[in-house]
């Protein structure tokens, strides 16, 4: 990754134009050719620096529901429980964290009712209590990370 790649990532985290030739427009602002921009984006995706290139949706406005949930997993069951949780297509993110509540995951469901069903299913399959922590108020979201 060089400075041009970093510039591309930082620029495209802020947004991508909706117009007939968006890559041309971005390339011009970065002082590179459209061909070079496309080639570099392909490489960055292939190398795994980007998870995807597309839209971030507002799940709630689409009728869906998002929540953050956590469970206390006994150390000896960690791998097993990870496999169970990750197998749910509703689980978008899953992180091990340094606390007694050591597994934290984000659930995205089509409806609020399905969120509760998914939590019950996870509790049933793991035998562990799920702490559900849906957001009550959002103060700030800016997941832009400078490359």
């Amino acid at each position: 990754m060089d400075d041009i790649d970093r510039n591309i990532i930082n620029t495209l985290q802020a947004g991508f134009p909706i117009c007939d030739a968006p890559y041309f427009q971005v390339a011009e602002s970065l002082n590179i050719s459209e061909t070079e921009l496309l080639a570099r984006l392909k490489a960055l995706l292939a190398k795994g620096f980007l998870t995807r290139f597309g839209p971030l949706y507002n799940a709630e406005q689409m009728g869906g529901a998002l929540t953050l949930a956590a469970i206390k997993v006994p150390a000896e069951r960690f791998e097993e429980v990870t496999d169970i949780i990750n197998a749910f297509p509703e689980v978008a993110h899953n992180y091990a964290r340094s606390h007694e509540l050591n597994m934290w995951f984000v659930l995205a469901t089509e409806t609020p009712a399905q969120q509760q069903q998914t939590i019950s299913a996870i509790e049933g399959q793991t035998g562990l209590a799920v702490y559900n922590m849906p957001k009550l108020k959002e103060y700030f979201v800016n997941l832009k990370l400078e490359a």
Partner: protein
Amino acid sequence: MPDALDLKLLARISAGLPLCPRPYAQIGMEIGLNETEVIRRLTALKADGLIKRLGVIVKHRPLGYRANAMIVWNVPDGLIKPLGKHISRFSFVTLCYQRPKHPEWPYNLYCMIHGKDRATVLAQLAQLDNACGLAHFERQILFSRRCFKQRGANYQTQHTKATANG
């Protein structure tokens, strides 16, 4: 609410924008709309807020962001809003939410700091403590140890599949 064609369009762009000079024309060809119509609909979906942002979503770790801390505080209800707003003003804060307390987990204010190493994140947290007067509230710092899954969330909407995040 989006109509059936919007949903089809959202489902198509969730799979990733085509890497070609006229990506919206390409998408239109695949789903039976012309380029102008694709651009018109996407512009409207973005203006309505259904699409928060169009662009790249980075993987934290390959970019060197290895210290991802979730910090949770137990603050009095009346202070959540001013503290949430104050915390959000710091450029290193990536997320800030109010969430419900549980009997065994009495925390109601959450913030995330994505940093390159723990020392930096802890120094930033100390800065927050000082500036926002957070030091005397009960809190926990949960660094991520491993990332098992990081992707946009898939969920089904009728016959389509969309992607969400947040």
